[in-house]
């Protein structure tokens, strides 16, 4: 049986709704990871990914097989994550005392080395701009080429290259600063 993503989409569109769980199973965990790094906390990330899958399902009739399903899904996810991040930033401006505290202040306070590393990573990512963070994650964590990133984000390749370059420079500064403490 052909169980490629495109074939599964055809099954869903022909009425086999349960086949959609094959796609959920294939991509959900991976994209939750991506969303966590993008929006900064797990709760929002899981909501974003759930919403992405639901929106993708509703729009499945417009999916074109010539595009890789994972990339199509990623495009929806990036748009949803941008919206959620923007709402979060507005909320922090309006209610600074209630700002999301998912990024801890000091890595040194945690005894476990791994936990400290994760905190350091979260903190570093939170200190670069959303556009740079998005470009960095797509390129270095998701492994997309600049052409693929352009299709997913709607931005130009030159702009994306600049964002990745600057994000690398900024992250290195931040991380080296942490290591010097």
């Amino acid at each position: 049986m052909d169980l490629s993503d495109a074939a599964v989409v055809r099954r869903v569109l022909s009425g086999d709704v349960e086949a959609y769980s094959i796609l959920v199973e294939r991509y959900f965990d991976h994209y939750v990871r991506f969303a966590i790094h993008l929006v900064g906390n797990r709760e929002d990330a899981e909501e974003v990914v759930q919403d992405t899958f639901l929106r993708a399902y509703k729009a499945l009739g417009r999916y074109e097989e010539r595009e890789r399903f994972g990339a199509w899904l990623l495009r929806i996810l990036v748009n949803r994550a941008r919206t959620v991040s923007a709402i979060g930033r507005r909320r922090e401006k309006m209610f600074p005392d209630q700002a999301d505290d998912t990024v801890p202040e000091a890595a040194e306070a945690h005894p476990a080395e791994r936990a400290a590393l994760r905190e350091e990573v979260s903190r570093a990512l939170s200190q670069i701009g959303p556009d740079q963070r998005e470009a960095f994650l797509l390129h270095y964590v998701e492994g997309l080429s600049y052409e693929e990133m352009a299709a997913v984000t709607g931005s130009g390749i030159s702009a994306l290259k600049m964002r990745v370059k600057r994000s690398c420079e900024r992250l290195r500064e931040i991380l080296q600063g942490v290591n010097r403490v």
Partner: protein
Amino acid sequence: MFDRMPAPDPLATLIDELREPVVVDPASKRRVMELVRETPLPTVSVASGRVLPGRSRAFAAIRSLRGERNGFSRSATASSLATAAGIALLMAVGTQDSATPRMAPGRRAVVIGDSVASMASAIRDTLRIVQFILTAPAASRVALAGDFNGWDTRAIPLTRDSRDGRWAVTLALAPGRHNYAYVVDDTQWVRDPLGTPSEPNELTPPRSVLIINR
């Protein structure tokens, strides 16, 4: 060609950490399906015949690059690299003589080299060259499908070695976790006999998981 990134680069450590898989509560996925079941079945939109130049070009770029990354073009590069490095592979040879499409382990998917894929700000993103081998002497066709190619059952065919019934393909893959399976004669999904089985799921075919470290 095979030089490694200078250790210890804090950015490389950060990327490794970001690539670590996360554990998601299965209830979260079940919730998606609950919502899907409550949603009317999507309908197929009729193609209008209009051409959307920008979008089409972008999609074409994705297709061609994905194909190059995961298919034969990249495989050819990978093979060259492996040859240039003088890497000798010792492979277990299957001895099946049955006409039935039995599968035997030739060798699990193995990382056999590196390829520097891109560079930005002195960070080198290294692809690992991986050889996938399945011994299936009675098979007419074998392909590799995985999350790296959208589980396409035709995009990455394996090449048969007529001497011993081994089928092989070499790919360049990014570090991280990759689920994959072999598709024999277009219909039969086969887990890598020597690979690490993926978490079983009644909805998906048998899969193996390959974790590639940087």
